[in-house]
């Protein structure tokens, strides 16, 4: 299914884009954590309280955002992180077939004794490997941010009773401000579900783009169709969140399955459900998909799109280059 030379060619063609996206994601995630460390929780809380009326647009209650883990988890919802993964997935997915056909290189490629499936899956292997690298870069960026930054924490001064070694808080004295490592406040392990969710989103987008690429001869048209779907789905999600009457719209957009902040919140507050497929209430009734449920949905739809792309590409006529 995968041809070594096609794999090598695909890596050579895409390595610069991958390097750029991975560097951008890593650097941004580190910087984002550094910014979190520059504002004390009180400052952030004061700002966020101004937006209480818009809490419904937040995937997690504001109380979750009043924790350092919650604030760091916001990184995975930043346009730069989502944008870089989407850019990679759409760029590689669209190049896979309509890109090669549009450039005219598919003609020479398929003149060789390689099957169409080998051409498609060798590219796919690189695309999905790249998505995994980018998801890893996002986690590594936040991990190194957590490990290298510290935060200011107001601490109540205390009296120590000699010989007994008992500390009595002195509420009357001015609070002492200490810098403590961020790693004491945030467990990087709690952010792994967010990175996995980012990977799942990348797989879905790459699969969807490859499917449209497999039926087209112009790369620009493939990108146009995907951009239209992307924007429409985003609007659907916003409208679904904005109106109770239209809340059902949220079920029609793939962005509903991308909830990194919520999955970090689950990892933090309900560790047993971190990798669950389904979430049930106390009486055992299904209430929602768990993090792995949503991830499986995204990855499953992405792989289904890849299977569709394989079938379409294998049976279509190859147009002559223009």
């Amino acid at each position, binding site marked *: 299914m995968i041809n070594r030379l*096609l794999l090598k060619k695909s890596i050579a063609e895409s390595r610069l884009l991958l390097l750029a996206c991975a560097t951008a994601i890593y650097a941004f995630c580190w910087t984002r954590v550094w910014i979190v460390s520059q504002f004390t929780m009180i400052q952030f809380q004061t700002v966020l309280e101004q937006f209480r009326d818009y809490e419904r647009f937040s995937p997690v209650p504001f109380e979750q955002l009043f924790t350092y883990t919650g604030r760091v988890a916001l990184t995975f919802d930043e346009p730069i992180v989502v944008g870089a993964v989407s850019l990679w997935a759409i760029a590689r997915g669209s190049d896979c077939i309509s890109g090669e056909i549009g450039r005219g*290189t598919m*003609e*020479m490629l*398929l*003149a060789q004794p390689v099957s169409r499936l080998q051409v498609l899956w060798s590219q796919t292997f690189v695309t999905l490997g790249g998505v995994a690298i980018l998801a890893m870069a996002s986690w590594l960026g936040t991990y190194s941010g957590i490990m290298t930054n510290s935060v200011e924490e107001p601490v109540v001064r205390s009296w120590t009773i000699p010989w007994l070694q008992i500390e009595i808080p002195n509420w009357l004295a001015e609070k002492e401000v200490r810098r403590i490592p961020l790693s004491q406040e945030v467990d990087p392990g709690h952010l792994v579900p967010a990175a996995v969710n980012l990977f799942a989103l990348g797989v879905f987008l790459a699969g969807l783009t490859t499917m449209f690429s497999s039926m087209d001869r112009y790369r620009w048209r493939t990108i146009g169709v995907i951009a239209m779907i992307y924007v429409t789905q985003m609007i659907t999600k916003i409208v679904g969140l904005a109106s109770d009457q239209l809340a059902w719209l949220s079920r029609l957009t793939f962005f509903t399955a991308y909830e990194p902040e919520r999955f970090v919140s689950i990892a933090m507050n309900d560790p047993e459900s971190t990798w669950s497929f389904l979430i049930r209430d106390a009486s055992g009734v299904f209430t929602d998909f768990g993090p792995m449920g949503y991830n499986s949905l995204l990855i499953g739809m992405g792989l289904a799109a890849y299977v569709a792309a394989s079938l379409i590409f294998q049976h279509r*006529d190859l147009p002559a280059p223009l």
Partner: protein
Amino acid sequence: MFIDLRGLTKRYGSFAALHDCTLTIERGEVFGLLGPNGAGKTTLLRLLLGYLSPTAGRATIDGLDCHRQSVEVRRRTSYLPGEVRLFGSMRGRNVLKFFAEIRPGGELRRSLDLADRFELDLSRRVAFMSTGMRQKLALVATLAADTPLLILDEPTANLDPTVRGIVAQLVAESRHQGRTVLFSSHVLSEVEEVCDRVAFLRDGQLAHLQVMHDLKRRHRIRARLAGPWQPPPDPLGQQLVIEREAEGRISIETPGEMAPVLQWLSSMDLQEMNVQPVGLRALYDSVHDLGHG
């Protein structure tokens, strides 16, 4: 037979790009495809390579179905497309390495030797090569593959006369090595030089099939009659196409041996006589005149 086409048809809606094409090509033959743009030449080649699925009919190469066993067919085939596009970011040498390695039994040495013959600068990136250089690079990659079938679609487009000569030479060498060559071109003199047989396509249909050896024996004689006309003796008269024009001018087309014709002509008083081979040009024109008639 090495290539066998049976009623091969490709339709796009109501438009037939190729219609009911039946043709066989023998192993070791250099076979030419001629026809104006849109006649169906490239469609035929793309059907052979499995790029297109036939609407009707069947094509086989070495007994393998071109559509269903496409990878096996391409293992036996080296193809140069009419519109050559190579990987822009690769250097010339890497392109040759890629095409040599992707084919079982491919040898880079052979490609490099051929590149020397074409005086190609392999250190340059494809994106910075001229159109002619890219064409030469693709030709080298195609000709270096050790396959029993060579399909060349407009191989000499964008090339200077010297390189065209080398291509003709290499096609002749391929024939001596026992390879089958399918050669599509608009340059009639090239086809005339290298091909054993030629198919004329017109509006997606096979209009005429010509054995080049027979064509080379065909001559046209033009002269002016200064004395009385002597009709040719039988059976020679039945073989000749004679046109008598004004002022005693005559045009005679002979399909075979010249000796009996010259013997007959010597019995008449002729002036301003000239003898020319009929050539592919005249045949091409007549095939397409038929189309308009």
